[in-house]
């Protein structure tokens, strides 16, 4: 009986999984001892419905099974696990849900009884204080990022300008191009090494990860201190290294991490415990604070507090909770206020909080630029165009990301790729500056600090260089506010094309990057081009291209990220003018509709490509036809109220089935009803629900019943013991249980959740989905008419249903 555990080859030539099988994924949690999973060389005869991913497994043993089959207690054959190349239609098993639902066990009820009302009010005040702290810290981090990027980029451009000026006069401009490429590659290499080798979850903008977290999925490492450090340093390196990225997305992620950290009152990484805020060490509170942190991040990035609140609510909350909304708004406003204060000091206008330089995109004065009703159709056309262009961007980026996931998965390769992108960005920028003949005299406002003369006359400067040598925010600002005639249409057109390709290529690299500012810049460029075209056609009647730049920016951003409400408010606040609210909203709606018709939004694509079991706002269409019995997992591993330690340890140590929630059933005879095929029909009368984390804490503290018999006081755990172990519960392998302890029993009744949510087995998928999503559940027990446990519904069971092209389809589950 071969017990071969062979590594599956990762060769791409092996396309139908014909390699040797290693771990047999047994269908039932094996009741064997811990550790060795039964494996073997098998000639299984699973039938596959199609050569692609999904298949129903023939559970009965067909004929022809050789005698290699091991112990007869193994009832089912194990199929050969199929291997397929990565695609977007997969869900990964490694993602768990957050425990948003409160476990109202006996300990909790006792604590609430002991604490009383005064403590509850104290806790409420504590929440407000934490929100204020979140706002202040997020703003400070955003200021640090802002200021360091400005200084570093300024230094780089100063050095480059010196070289280019000398080389212009003396010859050898190609050397300056090489120098530029080398500087870019060097800075980006540092950032990329930090991300690829240090903390891969810090790659990208962080918004998809935060979206998933607020949806209720526990993304590993997403809110750790290490992630924050890597993210901040990474974004500084990316922007200073000249990549086509923005710094706004990483600020949102940083805000979320700060919120998760501050609300716990301790740092596991730094091993410091401040012994306060212990009450908030629960997933419920943490997720609420992370919403506040994300909102504070948005408001620090754009100066848009209301936009931040709406972003958080649009992405995160399952339902509108008034107190939570108020606290989130408080955190956002504090964040904007702190940021304004610090930046006003940095710009030497200390205390002048209404200094216009703090508004990100420059204020559009109401008297300056008006729009008329006959321009609304033009704006709508721009919206359509933005949607189409955004869909194209997403499509190209999708294929690029699939390529990256399939073939470029080693960290060294990722770093090399990032360096190459930085190099090519420098080369493209340089050649565009080199071949551009557009010379402009420098304007009075001196919004561009670093200018290149290159081949222009004395006193004039290369306007393409002005665009490339600035941080993207300044370029967006110039595009919005510069007087007509500043930009040459050919320059703008070439810039649009090259920037589109470079930005599409850049997003998805193993660097911290945001996609807001590149899309705004791209949209502002083609919007301005459109405005110039209009004023040319109308012989000067439509003379202001700045307003079209704003609409183009909104259209492009809406076409790429497909956010509606929050984006409108963010743009209105960032430009300081409410009059533009109507056109911006129309443009965004148009872009979203057209874009959704063609392709999905960028963040949704990346979430799908990461195989996250994300649950949308609404259940998929036609989901009323499925019932709970098809959706649920069956059979279910249950515990009795007085359970043997040995059984608990065995079940928790089982590698093949990574369960986290176990229904607790009543003991007695005929616990498990067996139907005619020998399968368990139900598993006993439901009494409660136990989580793996709770069981581990019990085992760790050895809260066994036998101990109390010998005269020791009953070792009763308190909630504090559970909270101390949160959030990084030790794995079962680190808990040592001796042989005699395995014979002890544990009383689960005071620790279990005595009132878990249940659904009857006829409940439709639609209903289960809504219940699950609205309450933020992790496990939902399916019972029959006698309140006996039949199955368990988890997030992966629900998220695998997607509505696609005429029918409901199931997405297969993968191991990693």
């Amino acid at each position, binding site marked *: 009986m071969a017990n071969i555990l062979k590594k599956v080859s990762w060769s791409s030539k092996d396309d139908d999984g014909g390699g040797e099988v290693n771990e047999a994924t047994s269908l039932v949690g094996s009741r064997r001892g811990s550790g060795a999973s039964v494996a073997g060389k098998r000639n299984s005869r699973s039938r596959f419905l199609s050569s692609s991913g999904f298949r129903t497994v023939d559970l009965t043993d067909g004929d022809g099974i050789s005698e290699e089959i091991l112990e007869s207690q193994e009832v089912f054959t194990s199929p050969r696990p199929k291997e397929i190349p990565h695609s977007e239609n997969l869900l990964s098993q490694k993602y768990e849900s957050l425990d948003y639902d409160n476990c109202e066990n006996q300990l909790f009820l006792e604590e609430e009884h002991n604490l009383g009302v005064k403590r509850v009010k104290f806790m409420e005040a504590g929440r407000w204080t934490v929100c204020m702290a979140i706002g202040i810290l997020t703003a400070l981090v955003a200021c640090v990022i802002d200021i360091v990027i400005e200084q570093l980029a300024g230094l780089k451009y100063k050095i480059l300008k010196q070289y280019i000026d000398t*080389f*212009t006069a003396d010859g050898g401009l190609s050397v300056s191009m090489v120098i530029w490429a080398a500087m870019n590659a060097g800075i980006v290499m540092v950032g990329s090494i930090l991300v690829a080798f240090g903390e891969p979850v810090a790659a990208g903008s962080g918004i998809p990860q935060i979206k998933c977290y607020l949806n209720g999925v526990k993304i590993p490492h997403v809110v750790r201190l290490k992630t924050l450090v890597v993210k901040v340093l990474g974004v500084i390196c990316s922007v200073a290294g000249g990549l086509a990225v923005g710094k706004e997305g990483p600020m949102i992620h940083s805000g979320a991490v700060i919120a998760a950290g501050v609300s716990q009152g301790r740092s596991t990484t730094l091993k410091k415990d401040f012994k306060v805020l212990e009450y908030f060490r629960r997933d419920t509170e943490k997720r609420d604070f992370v919403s506040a942190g994300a909102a504070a991040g948005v408001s620090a990035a754009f100066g848009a507090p209301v936009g931040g609140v709406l972003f958080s609510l649009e992405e995160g909350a399952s339902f509108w909770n008034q107190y939570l909304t108020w606290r989130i708004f408080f955190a956002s406003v504090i964040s904007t206020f702190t940021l304004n204060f610090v930046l006003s000091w940095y710009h030497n206008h200390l205390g002048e909080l209404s200094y216009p330089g703090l508004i990100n995109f420059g204020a559009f004065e109401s008297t300056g630029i008006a729009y008329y009703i006959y321009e609304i159709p033009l704006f709508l056309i721009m919206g359509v165009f933005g949607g189409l262009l955004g869909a194209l961007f997403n499509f190209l980026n999708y294929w690029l990301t699939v390529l990256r996931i399939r*073939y470029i998965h080693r960290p060294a390769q990722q770093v090399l790729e990032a360096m190459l992108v930085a190099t090519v960005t420098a080369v493209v920028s340089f*050649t565009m500056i080199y071949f551009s003949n557009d010379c402009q005299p420098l304007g009075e406002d001196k919004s561009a600090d670093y200018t290149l003369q290159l081949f222009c006359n004395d006193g004039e400067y290369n306007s393409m260089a002005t665009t490339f040598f600035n941080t993207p925010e300044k370029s967006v600002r110039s595009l919005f506010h510069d007087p007509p005639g500043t930009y040459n249409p050919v320059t703008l057109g070439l810039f649009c094309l090259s920037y589109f390709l470079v930005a599409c290529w850049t997003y998805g690299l193993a660097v911290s990057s945001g996609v807001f500012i590149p899309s705004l810049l791209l949209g502002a460029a083609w919007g301005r081009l459109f405005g110039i075209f209009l004023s040319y056609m109308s012989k000067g009647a439509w003379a202001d291209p700045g307003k079209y730049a704003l609409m183009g920016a909104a259209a492009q951003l809406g076409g790429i990220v497909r956010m509606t409400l929050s984006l409108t408010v963010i743009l209105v606040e960032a430009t300081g003018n409410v009059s533009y609210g109507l056109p911006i909203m129309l443009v965004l709606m148009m872009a979203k509709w057209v874009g959704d018709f063609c392709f999905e939004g960028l963040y949704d694509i990346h979430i799908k490509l990461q195989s996250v079991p994300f649950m949308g706002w609404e259940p998929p269409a036609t989901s009323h*036809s499925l019932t709970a019995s098809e959706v*649920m997992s069956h059979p279910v591993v249950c515990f009795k109220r007085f359970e043997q330690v040995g059984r608990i340890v065995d079940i928790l140590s089982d590698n093949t089935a990574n369960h986290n929630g176990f229904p607790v059933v009543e003991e007695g005879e005929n616990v498990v009803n067996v139907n005619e*095929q020998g399968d368990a029909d139900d598993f006993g009368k439901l009494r409660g629900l136990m989580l793996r984390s709770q069981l581990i804490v019990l085992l760790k503290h050895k809260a066994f019943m036998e101990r109390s018999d010998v005269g020791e006081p009953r070792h009763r755990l308190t909630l504090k013991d559970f909270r101390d172990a949160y959030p990084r519960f030790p794995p079962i392998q680190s808990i040592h249980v001796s042989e005699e302890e395995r014979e002890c029993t544990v009383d689960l009744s005071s620790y279990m959740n005595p009132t878990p949510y249940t659904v009857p087995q006829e409940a439709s998928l639609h209903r289960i989905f809504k219940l699950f999503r609205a309450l933020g559940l992790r496990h939902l027990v399916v019972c029959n008419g006698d309140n006996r446990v039949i199955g368990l519904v988890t997030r992966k069971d629900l998220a695998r249903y997607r509505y696609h092209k005429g029918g409901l389809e199931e*997405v*297969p589950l993968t191991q*990693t």
Partner: protein
Amino acid sequence: MATKGRLVPFLIPSLLLLLLLLPFLAFPAGAWGPGGSLPHAWLEPEMRGGGEVPLYPVYPVDPVDPLGPTPDESPCAPLLVEFARRSAELALCSLRHARPLRLCGSCVIQQWSANRTYGMILTTVQVNNETCERTLLRSDRLQLVYQQHSFSQGLWDAASCEACLVNGTNGTREVASWMISFMQQLNKTRTCFHENSLVPRYDLEGNVKHSAVCNNCRTAYNTLGKMYAELQKNGSLCIDLEDAMNTTRQLWSVQFNCVEYCSDTPSVLAVSIFMCMLPIFFYMSSVIHSRQRKRRLVTSKRMKSTNSSASLHRAQAQ
């Protein structure tokens, strides 16, 4: 005051009218009718010599004027006349030096004296404890005196003239040394241009070549540029210097075509093409040599009765 020579025939009535008109200069708008146009004589620009402004009092004077019937009782009237004269002098000087723009260097005295007069208007107090400021500046909606001062001061500030001035003797302002030296260098450069471009040379195609200018005047021009950059860094630039530098640069670049640069197009193209090829090689080698990362599927545990499974479409994994 009016020159007696021209006014002899009108002497006595004009003197009387003058005495009566003086209050009107302080309260002009109320007594005059709407759309009242000034007599032709008022508008004649009799600017002679020192730019004296003739005053033709032609309107009846308001009898209840607080300024009083005699000029001796109010110190504001002469101040007003003084201010009018100084402002006119300043306007004359500025417009005379509008192109080429030498406002700051040439009109210092005029600006200073106009300001001084205005300052005196602000501080003088009349007998009845009312200030001249209130009488002259804030008595009507139009506020001519204030607007005039505002306008000329605004022009002065926009030209950043104060950056090129230092305090002189007796509380006056005078032109700074760096401006003088810059102007000297400018003169030198311009002279060099002029001398070297007198004899045009022609190249093979018959175009005018200014290589003499480029060669001989390069040092002077570069020195000028360095001085300008230095001043720009210090922030001591006024519009005179800016304009001078701009026109010189225009001459140098556009007219004489002397800007030197070495364009390196072939090598730039070659290096850029090489660098753009690198990612293509990288991706091709990754696809060919890297083992594709595959995902291993996991069976879910489901209940066996799947009657409605036929209604589901199976996902086609790619």
